[in-house]
């Protein structure tokens, strides 16, 4: 169940004042959702259009803000041979667009023990040997809805440059669009994920401050202070709070 309010497009609260600005008249577009024609608002996102048409999404919707990669979509435009890719939540519809969502992608994931591998090209060779089939066609980069340099990080992985793979794949949302377009059948996003974990664990310089704090916590350095605070009455705690110094 969702309340009736849920279905409302525009909430009441943030627009209390009288509107002076005229809302533009709704322009409609035709889109073909999995081949079926629907009339939808021309300024809708693909996800908005699918829901406007009456679908209640199970697959193909997630965070709806471009972070989770649930809504990978492929589409074509009239008179154009190209296959386009995008996230349904952040891509706007175009008139006569023909679209289909990618509900899931059977991407290969290597199983490994993070404590027993090294941040080196050998690890890449062992876990994702298909990386070395890359033909540098750049299709992955063109498919990426985040505009990441996907091919460049795969090339970096071939050289064992873990830091560069980490850096270039940092904003990857694992939507799978690169992998489904790859003629070498590489699962780029999992290679990126592996490199990030290797970098974070083995290559990132360690924080001395953090190590020191952990040692302090181990010997219960703050135990007394905590006990004091836990005993402090609400009234006194308020006073301490409002008088505390700010960095």
């Amino acid at each position, binding site marked *: 169940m969702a309340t009736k*309010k849920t279905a*409302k497009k525009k*909430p009441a*609260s943030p627009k209390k004042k009288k509107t002076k600005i005229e809302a533009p008249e709704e322009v409609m577009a035709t889109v073909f959702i999995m081949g079926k024609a629907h009339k939808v608002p021309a300024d809708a996102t693909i996800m908005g259009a699918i829901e406007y048409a009456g679908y209640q999404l*199970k697959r193909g919707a997630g965070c709806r803000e471009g972070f989770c990669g649930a809504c990978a979509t492929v589409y074509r435009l009239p008179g154009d041979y190209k296959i386009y890719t995008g996230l349904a939540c952040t891509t706007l519809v175009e008139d006569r667009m023909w679209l289909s969502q990618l509900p899931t992608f059977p991407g290969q994931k290597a199983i490994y023990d993070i404590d027993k591998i090294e941040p080196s090209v050998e690890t890449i060779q062992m876990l994702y040997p298909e990386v070395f089939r890359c033909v540098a066609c750049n299709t992955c980069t063109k498919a990426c809805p985040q505009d990441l340099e996907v091919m460049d990080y795969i090339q970096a992985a071939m050289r064992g440059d873990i830091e560069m793979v980490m850096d270039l794949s*940092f904003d990857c949302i694992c939507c799978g669009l690169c992998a489904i377009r790859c003629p070498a059948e590489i699962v780029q996003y999992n290679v990126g994920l592996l490199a990030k974990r290797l970098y974070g664990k083995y290559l990132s*310089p360690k924080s001395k401050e953090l190590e020191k704090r952990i040692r302090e916590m181990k010997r219960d350095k703050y135990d007394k202070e905590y006990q004091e605070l836990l005993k402090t009455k609400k009234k006194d*705690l308020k006073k301490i709070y409002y008088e505390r110094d700010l*960095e």
Partner: protein
Amino acid sequence: MYPEYMSESLEKVTQSRNKRFELAKSGKPIYPPMNAEEREDVLNKFHPDYKVESRRKVRIGPNKGELLTTEVTDMLESHSRITSKLFDLTSPDYETDILIIGGGGAGCAAAIIAQQQGVKSIISTKLRLGDANSMMSQGGMQAAVTPQDPPTKHYLDAIGGGHFDNKPELVRALTEDGPDVAKWLEELGVVWDKADDGTLQVLHGGGTSRKRMLSCRDYTGAIILRTLMDEIRNHPEEITILEFMPIIELLLDHKGQCAGGVLYNLETEEYFTVKAKATMIATGGYGRLHIRGFDTTNHYGATGDGLVMAYKAGAKLMYMDSVQYHPTGSVFPEQIAGFLITEKIRGAGGQPLNKDGEIFVFPREPRDVESSAFIRECLERNNGIQTPSGRVGIWLDSPLIEMLHGEGYINKQFPAMHRQFIRYGIDITQEPMLVYPSLHYQNGGIEINEKTETNIPGLFVAGEASGGVHGRNRLMGNSVLDYNVFGRRTGKYASEYATKAKIGTLSLEHVDKYEKALKDARIKTKRVSPILLPYYTPEDVRKRQLTACYEGTLR
């Protein structure tokens, strides 16, 4: 691109920027923080929670007679999807040590800790593994790691931000485990923002007295959760993942222990039963209830499912009268209305400004205070900026950040935010964003203690679904910390419990009893919960649908 009529206001923002920059650079206060009275005043007058109609008394269940958020009361006072008659509980379809309900941060952290102790688990998740608000947190995670910031300062900030209503032992657990969580995550492979010498980058958040916000650019949640998910997928023998298979009711045994749940396969529309020695609720929050008609920053699946299941089984809720509105939800363009604009923007020096380009509030008040101040500026003082669709908002000046930290800083630290706006022709290194409070977080939840236990033996809760950690207002960066701290604690304590627990005869009697209580209280409703999926179907389409006669769609 902003419409032409906003150019005058935008011009004022540009004009005042140099002066604001000089002041911010000088280190002098840019605006005085509110004292206790001022905070109370603005909350009373403008926070949506403080409106009489925002709360309604719940008539049945463990919190009977309490005033709760109206939409929550509606959800609690509703029918189950099932009755006990439908099930033969003598031969469950799945058996495991720990049933983890929810595949977000808390559930994943718990599964990893349990696995490390040789304890098996099933993660039941309504959508995909990792489909959760945890994935969407942008700005960071608080952890007291610098020499000038003992964890007790963190304790004080959190408890003051929560209006001193937090359960102190939970705040102690939260802040005390912080540094260890930071290290644990790094050892799993999380890439924290750091200086070249390894010093962790720390920034301010709303209501913090020390800089203690750790981050992974503005993909903090995504980096952390994907690391946890990858680790989980490295252990398929011990951790079973059931996707698109939400739990829709808990199972109890004849001794009143929690003993698993009833699964619903969203796609084949079948039910299955799971018997477990311990059960964890990690279902997150309820932003998709669109409380008081607000847009939300939340994930599609945030429909408060765990809350209602636990309530029907007899779990006590805490502070379910308190809702968090994030001060900076986007209001323009319309396509991204309600989307989260990370508080890290203000942590890095971004300023909220009214239509005249003036700063009107200290940029880093606790969220409830900051949000209320924004609402006051727009609705009472009429100093907001109206959008073409009739919304109203205030400016969040991001170009100032580049002036403060140097060119390229936004691209490096806020790639997600930059991406979000450039799609619509707004370059946030050059122009401000238009914002208004958006429904963000469930401050309360199922009451837990520091071992994440509830009043039902064998039922553990962690993350946003739990209540008490944040009192009546959570600070930025404490939710990411929360799901790690208490997710790990569930992993530990539920494992201990599971190794000793002896489960008796399984039962769904509590579901029938709840149904009877509804009837006895003469509550007539068509509502069914858990809600599982929100719907955004236009009314005219909805009328023609097969499920049109239901409240909701029953999928």
